[in-house]
């Protein structure tokens, strides 16, 4: 039996249940656990649940140290951009230490952060930074698109023995969706086919999955059958499932909220070009943000970001390409 849950709620439930299961899991960050009435403080006490100052370097660095000495910290960072003031900890400490120690230490910690808030937060609070993390060996990156995946990936992130950047999309925060009962876990590195189709493969993550599904719905009305694949984690990245889908459909549209050269789409395109070239009936098409920072004013913001219409027209263009060829 599935239960309905909001995206944010599914994450909170996963954290709560993992903290109940494993006393070494701790949870801290800014602007949380402010009073004794806080539900996490009530359940787990102030040793395991803490408020921090605005000190991302210390927050994440302390998580790394604690992880090497037996804890499994989850750091609440709110917005992925706030990690940037302490990016050394994310990409040049957490994922490097095990390797440099010749496998002697492990750093199980979760850096939890929202991203992509396309709601007038302007240039410094609405970006997508996953491209900078998904290529760092030793670091895992989760980008759920549904309540069920949000819960399952958070559980997997906490249990993982490696540092994980867990990115939840702000625009999905209050979306409701079914979540399986029990200890629902989504393994890392396993893509999910969110909608089956035969004419074209659309690959998207997080909020872009929602937009792609809406586009697929619109295309279905016009007789086009689109398959929507959600990698769910960008590191590890399940290229096999994507290539399998392309083998079936012969066409690939990649949807990504980041600007083109800072997108996961560019990486996926490269992998498919190498591993799935023979299946392609048309060139790969990328629908990404335009090459600008995110502007504040709504007409400009919508203009630079991928939209349902842009996805639909990209799909039509790869289909047209084939029609012209035959």
């Amino acid at each position, binding site marked *: 039996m599935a239960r309905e849950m909001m995206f944010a709620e599914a994450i909170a439930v996963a954290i709560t249940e993992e903290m109940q299961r494993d006393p070494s899991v701790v949870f801290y960050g*800014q*602007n949380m656990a*402010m*009073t004794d009435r806080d539900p996490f403080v009530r359940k787990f006490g102030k040793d395991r649940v803490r*408020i*921090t*100052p*605005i*000190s*991302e*370097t210390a927050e994440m660095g302390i998580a790394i140290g604690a992880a090497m000495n037996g804890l499994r910290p989850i750091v609440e960072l709110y917005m992925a*951009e*706030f990690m*940037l*003031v*302490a990016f050394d900890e994310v990409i040049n400490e957490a994922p490097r230490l095990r390797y440099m120690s010749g496998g002697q230490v492990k750093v199980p910690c979760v850096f939890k952060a929202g991203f992509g*808030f396309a*709601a*007038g*937060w*302007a*240039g*410094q*609070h609405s970006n997508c930074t996953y491209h900078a993390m998904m290529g760092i060996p030793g670091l895992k990156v989760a980008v759920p698109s549904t309540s069920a995946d949000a819960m399952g990936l958070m559980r997997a992130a906490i249990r993982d023995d490696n540092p994980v950047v867990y990115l939840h999309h*702000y*625009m999905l*925060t*209050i979306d409701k969706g079914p979540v399986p009962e029990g200890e629902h876990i989504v393994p890392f590195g396993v893509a999910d086919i969110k909608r089956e189709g035969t004419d074209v493969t659309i690959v998207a993550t997080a909020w872009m999955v929602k937009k792609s599904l809406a586009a697929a719905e619109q295309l279905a009305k016009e007789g086009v059958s689109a398959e929507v694949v959600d990698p769910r984690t960008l590191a590890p990245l399940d290229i096999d499932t994507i290539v399998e889908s392309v083998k079936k459909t012969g066409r690939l549209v990649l949807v990504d909220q980041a600007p083109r050269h800072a997108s996961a789409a560019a990486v996926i395109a490269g992998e498919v070009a190498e591993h799935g070239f023979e299946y392609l009936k048309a060139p790969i098409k990328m629908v990404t943000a*335009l*090459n*600008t*920072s995110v*502007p*504040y*004013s*709504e*007409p*400009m*913001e*919508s*203009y*630079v970001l991928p939209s349902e219409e842009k996805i639909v027209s990209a799909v039509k263009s790869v289909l047209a390409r084939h029609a012209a060829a035959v």
Partner: protein
Amino acid sequence: MAASSELGKDKLTWMYTQMCRIREFEERVKRTFVEHPGVIRGHAHLGDGAEASIVGSLATRHENDLVMPSYRCHGYPLVLGTSAKAVMAEIYQRKTGVCKGFGGSMHLADPAHHLPTASGIIGQGIAHAAGAAYAAQVKKTGQVVYSFFGDGSSKQGAFYETLNMAAVWKLPVVFVLENNEYQAYTHIKLEDANAIAGDPLSQKAKAFSIPGATVDGTDPLKVYDAVNEAAERARAGKGPSLIESKFYRFSPHGNAITVPPVPTQFQEHEAIEVYGNKAEFAAAQANDPIKKFRAHLIGAGVVTEADAKKIEDFVRTEMDEVVKFALESPLPAPEDALNYVYA
């Protein structure tokens, strides 16, 4: 600049007027969320309660001195001479905005009026201010740079790195730490080691062996004197100072964070909303910097009750026009977004 005791009627009246303008402007921003939902997007942070601190500080400026505020930046450009219409239009997403709709509430910029930029990322603007001061030092412009940031921001690495370097390089910068007792929803007693120990935050200056002073940020004249001394010191080539200006913000941190299309508004102050501390909030309101300065000016015979009313009426009329202008202004064209990526 002279000591505050030597300030004449014109300057004092100007100071009161600017304080009223900031308050009225912020009231209009807040009301917009109720009267015109959707016109302001994202996150807006208000400076009501900070008027004495902002105006007392900026009243010490020399003509070309620069100002670098945080994302809570509406008040400063109003005082510096930026058109209030252009500031409101920016917050309203308009093409006529001071940043043409690119920046919004958190990122006001008007270099022509000595405000180069405002960063939305905690602490980073502190370094930018020191950098502007470095340029002033190298180019011998005589400028002093005023850096404004919150109590919470003083826990960011950029604060420590920058204050040390500014001290080493003797940069002409005044660091104004605006202590409003909160960083977002967190009370200062939960996150600042000095505050927890009962020490002033200006004590942080000792770590860099620079002057540090704590001042009543609800009294523009006290702020004026403290900042003036620091600015003159900086101008004389003796390096930076840290001024802790203590006041209270009357509005909550920002409008509620919601996902569209869920509407957003300003809720109760965190003192009440989070901590259930009505007494703290009431005490702060009873210590309203604008009311106090008004009473002071009337008591000292600088202005009459009628003069004060005239100023307040003038400001209300101005802000009526500001809102009207911003509402009637056009939005940018979608393709405008492609501009300004590179110089």
